[in-house]
């Protein structure tokens, strides 16, 4: 009988098998690497920079100005981004069906990952002195000066990046409200004001303090935007001053002072964010499914039609023209590509480095989350929190400090050339870690309780558990995380600016060189190639993991 044949070869569950500690050790190794290299790099900088005087921050006019401007531009950018994100998110939640909604949502997601130099290129094409919007500006103000350089330009670029991110996260929060609440609101006939007070504002205000901390940190530590649009000592931030201290003045003491200041402010903010329930997920799109139902909300009628149109049109005008400008200008410059001998090596170099950084971020992310899960399952919440929190280190530790510190740590052994690029890969991997972890977290820790118990009872452990139970859930988020990490590395223009060689540039370096030498057409083509590479990465990785695997018996 078949069942007898089956039972003859059955597995014995009685052999005491030690619960594998692999996740713990993997997590500890990653933690040691991160904290060791992170704090080690800061320590190396401090050791090399004796005589740091904190008082010079407010005593020396230049430094006091840098600190004041850093705080001012970040506060203003946060205020404008969030102030505009709220009505945009509410309008998007209210208007669930309109032509172009998907395109707008996609453009909002794209703005999170589009390399800063590309965004800058597009912003210059639209808002620069020769840009598409210049005639309108001149007609309105009579000024030919423009508004893209200095504080207004920096805030505009920060809003370009952070308004869509904030609006997307706020929209997610609005869509998380239980469908039953919306049904109740519909049955009670709640109007705009009633819905705002009972449903929308309570949902939004939970997220706002944490979101403000996130946006402020991103603006406060922004590098490429300030470096390009700052245009002088009056508009310099800590991060740019840090770069100048390292690259041009070789002033390690000043660099250490600036790094410590930035670290203290960012840590304070993150402490505040954590006390409010932790940083919001950086990975948009991981919220619950939007509520179903086909009824139209009562507050979608009347004056809302007008206001929602205004906000959504405004968002489209902010986001789409710069992206379209990159494509249009790039297409015009494609003919020049044949003459660009350095483009393809730069692309190849960027891709290899991005693959290395992505692989590193993915490995570290999986190890840290697995270790976190192992510890949390055993009730060690503090240790679990520390392990997971270490992945966020880079959000408070400037990437330039990490790179420089590592350079100082490894200097006796570090040669030039590819070793400098290796360092960039390492730092880029660290930089991508917070994003990667946010994307992977749900999939890695989300094995439902019933399935976990079933797996325990069947003694499915270790590699088999990973291969058959976790990996099928993990493969799509892993592909997305890899795409995020590779994109961040592909677009990096902070660490590479310090360690890259002008004769062997990456794509962003090449783009910066071309912009610097006013080769506009060529730069446009390079920007388009970079944008196309980012898009191709997302499409390719998504396509590779799109279909669920079927496991045939033979």
């Amino acid at each position, binding site marked *: 009988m078949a069942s007898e044949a089956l039972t003859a070869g059955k*597995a014995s569950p009685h052999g005491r098998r030690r619960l594998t500690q692999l996740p713990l050790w993997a997590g500890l190794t990653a933690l040691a690497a991160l904290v060791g290299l992170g704090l080690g790099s800061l320590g190396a900088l401090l050791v090399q920079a004796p005589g740091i005087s904190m008082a010079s921050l407010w005593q020396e006019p230049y430094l006091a100005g840098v600190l004041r401007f850093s705080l001012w531009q970040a506060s203003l950018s946060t205020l404008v981004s969030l102030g505009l994100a709220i009505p945009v998110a509410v309008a998007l939640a209210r208007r669930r069906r309109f032509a172009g909604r998907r395109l707008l949502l996609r453009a909002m997601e794209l703005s999170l990952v589009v390399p800063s130099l590309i965004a800058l290129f597009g912003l210059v094409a639209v808002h620069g002195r020769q840009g598409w919007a210049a005639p309108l500006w001149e007609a309105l103000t009579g000024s030919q000066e423009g508004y893209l350089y200095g504080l207004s330009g920096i805030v505009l670029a920060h809003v370009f990046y952070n308004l869509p991110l904030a609006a997307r996260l706020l929209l997610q929060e609005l869509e998380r409200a239980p469908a039953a609440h919306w049904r109740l609101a519909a049955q009670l006939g709640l109007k705009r004001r009633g819905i705002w007070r009972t449903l929308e504002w309570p949902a939004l205000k939970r997220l706002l303090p944490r979101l403000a901390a996130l946006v402020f940190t991103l603006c406060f530590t922004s590098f490429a935007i300030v470096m390009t649009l700052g245009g002088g000592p009056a508009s310099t931030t800590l991060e740019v001053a840090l770069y100048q201290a390292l690259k041009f003045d070789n002033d390690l003491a000043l660099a250490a002072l600036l790094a410590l200041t930035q670290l203290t402010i960012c840590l304070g903010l993150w402490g505040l964010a954590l006390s409010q329930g932790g940083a919001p997920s950086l990975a948009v799109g991981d919220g619950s499914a939007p509520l179903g139902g086909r009824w139209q909300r009562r507050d979608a009628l009347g004056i809302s039609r007008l206001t929602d149109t205004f906000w959504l049109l405004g968002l489209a005008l902010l986001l789409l023209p710069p992206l379209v400008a990159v494509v249009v200008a790039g297409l015009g410059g494609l003919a020049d590509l044949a003459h660009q001998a350095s483009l393809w090596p730069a692309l190849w170099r960027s891709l290899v480095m991005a693959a290395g950084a992505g692989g590193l971020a993915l490995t570290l992310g999986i190890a840290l989350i697995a270790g976190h899960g192992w510890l949390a399952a055993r009730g060690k919440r503090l240790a679990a929190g520390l392990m997971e929190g270490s992945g966020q280190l880079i959000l408070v530790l400037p990437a330039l400090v990490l790179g420089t510190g590592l350079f100082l740590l490894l200097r006796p052994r570090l040669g030039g050339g590819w070793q400098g690029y290796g360092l960039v890969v390492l730092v880029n991997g660290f930089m991508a870690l917070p994003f990667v972890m946010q994307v992977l977290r749900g999939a890695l820790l989300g094995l439902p309780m019933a399935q976990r118990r079933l797996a325990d009872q069947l003694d499915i452990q270790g590699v088999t558990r990973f291969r058959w139970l976790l990996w099928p859930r993990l493969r799509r988020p892993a592909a997305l995380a890899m795409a995020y990490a590779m994109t961040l590395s592909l677009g990096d223009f902070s660490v590479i600016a310090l360690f890259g060689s002008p004769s062997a540039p990456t794509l962003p370096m090449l783009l910066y060189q071309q912009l610097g030498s006013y080769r506009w057409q060529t730069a446009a083509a390079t920007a388009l190639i970079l944008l196309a590479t980012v898009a191709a990465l997302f499409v390719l990785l998504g396509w590779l993991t799109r279909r669920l695997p079927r496991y045939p018996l033979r």
Partner: protein
Amino acid sequence: MLDANNLSFHYTRCDPGETPDFAFSFRLAPGECLAVSGPSGAGKSTLLNLLAGFLSPSGGRLTWLGEDLTDQPPWARGMTTVFQDHNLFEHLPVWINVGLGLSPDLRLSDDQRSDILDGLAEVGLGGLHDRLPGELSGGQQQRVALLRSLVRETRVLLLDEPFSGLDRGNREALWGLVRRQQAAGVAVLLVSHDPEDVEALAQRRLRLVEGRLVSP
């Protein structure tokens, strides 16, 4: 003989000497089926989770033929639980779901793979080995879960309302599978509200009242 001796559990911390929320004592012989019923919140799930090792007891002992199982992890107890649903890994086809019972690391020989096909045919699921659980009916899914418990070296089968919502034909087919297990010496603990299921399978009945097992 499965022997639960004052196996107890607290949902909140309590002092020594304080009466626990739940305390279970009963015996279950190989091949016997014991039915347990009781109102919501009486402790049916707690009882099953304690027996399976998903919860750690705060006191008492659990033994099988004298072997102490109290602190054994779930996989080393020789127990298989079949719930009302979620018994299968939804993303894996039927044959892997059964194969995991045969070999937890899925190293299956060709003979074992053939045996899985024969086993599936025997429980009326011939030709469905490549289907995903979501492509089967509720009764078919429960048959796969029971077939997997059949291929494991199970000492005690814990059934948590496994026949709920199934039609008469499916239930009878599943009863047959459980009886086969009993005939092979497997002890069965059946949690069910349905008198027909209890009548069909159980030799003995107990009732759960406020965290204690009593005769009905």
